């Protein structure tokens, strides 16, 4: 458990220093833990656990947009679990139940828990369709068509800088829509 969390902290430090691959690996590594916590939270609130993926994606977006609030001298796991807990409580509350989430639930996920394959979620996709055309195009190109920023720029005759701006604005807008829907 300690080892896993130290590894996360190391990956996040590299990510903040500009290592995109480390960031990708970190997000992949934390996702099964978040998924297990979301399923448990939903089950305990008497909700169907099949909505867990929506919550996982909301947590990942929040982690991404708020990562500057992580102190690189501090361990990553407590920060991650605090974000996850807040988003989980929000999500459950929106689903009509006030519920308390124990932070230990997140930390205690067994390392042996079977990593689930990636799953699709409806809410992000629904909100994606309400974004302005340009942001939607860029997000879809990078997310769904796995295009790089460079390829996306070429495809839409945009500069790479403009693609980056549209990508970031799109992710921020998506998060705001998920929060308020």
């Amino acid at each position, binding site marked *: 458990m300690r080892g896993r969390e130290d590894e996360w902290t190391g990956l996040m430090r590299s990510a903040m220093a500009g290592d*995109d691959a480390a960031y990708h690996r970190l997000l992949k590594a934390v996702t099964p833990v978040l998924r297990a916590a979301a399923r448990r939270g939903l089950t305990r609130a008497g909700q169907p656990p099949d909505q867990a993926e929506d919550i996982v*994606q909301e947590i990942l977006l929040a982690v*991404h947009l708020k990562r500057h*609030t992580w102190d690189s001298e*501090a361990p990553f796991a407590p920060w991650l679990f605090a974000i996850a807990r807040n988003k989980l409580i929000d999500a459950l509350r929106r689903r009509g139940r006030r519920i308390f989430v124990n932070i230990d639930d997140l930390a205690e996920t067994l390392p042996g828990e079977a990593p689930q394959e990636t799953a699709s979620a409806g809410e992000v996709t629904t909100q994606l369709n309400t974004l302005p055309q340009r942001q939607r195009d860029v997000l879809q190109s990078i997310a769904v068509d796995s295009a790089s*920023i460079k390829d996306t720029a070429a495809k839409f005759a945009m500069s790479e800088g403009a693609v980056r701006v549209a990508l970031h604005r799109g992710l921020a807008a998506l998060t705001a829509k998920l929060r308020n829907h």
Partner: protein
Amino acid sequence: MDTDQLIRTLAADNARHAPRVGALLTTGLLVAAPLSILIFATFLGVRSDVMSAMHNPFFDMKFAVTLSLAIPAIIISLHLSRPEALMRGWGWLLLLPVGLLAVAIGSEAMMAPAMPMTMRLVGKNSRACLSAIPAMSLPLLAGALFGLRHGAPSRPALSGALAGLLSAGLAATLYASHCTDDSPLFVATWYTIATAAVTAIGAVVGSKVLRY
């Protein structure tokens, strides 16, 4: 969109670096400050006997009290902008202005009273105090909330209340240079009521706008 696709998209956006919350809080307050100062200059202004007032320790004490509210509130609000941060271990900082006021009230009580207690308490400016501090606070509160929105507070209402405290502390610092009521009893009463009102507004607005 499946989660792997989302993760890939987030990784593609990794190069984008957001400024620190402290930088945006500073920006928000600096943008708002001219508005508050404009309100001060238009309706209040520095009291005319300021040079002689500076020799009065109770005049100086007002600034110690208001700044000992504003500065700790800024520090705690930044601390709480991290999601895993707890109030525990930090709340005592907010007792600083309370302690200072208690000492000031005690020392005033030991001196031969220049005025009866009720006059010191009610003063000449209680109504001005109750409207001027909140009025000058509001731009600062908006600026503080703008900056703190950039954080990830786990308790948005609490962070909003701290934004209220810090803006009221700064506004009260301006107001203290105008007001001729220097008795700590006056400060403890009217400044506190004005600050509480701004803090309540901060908590209500914060609970909405500081969610992330």
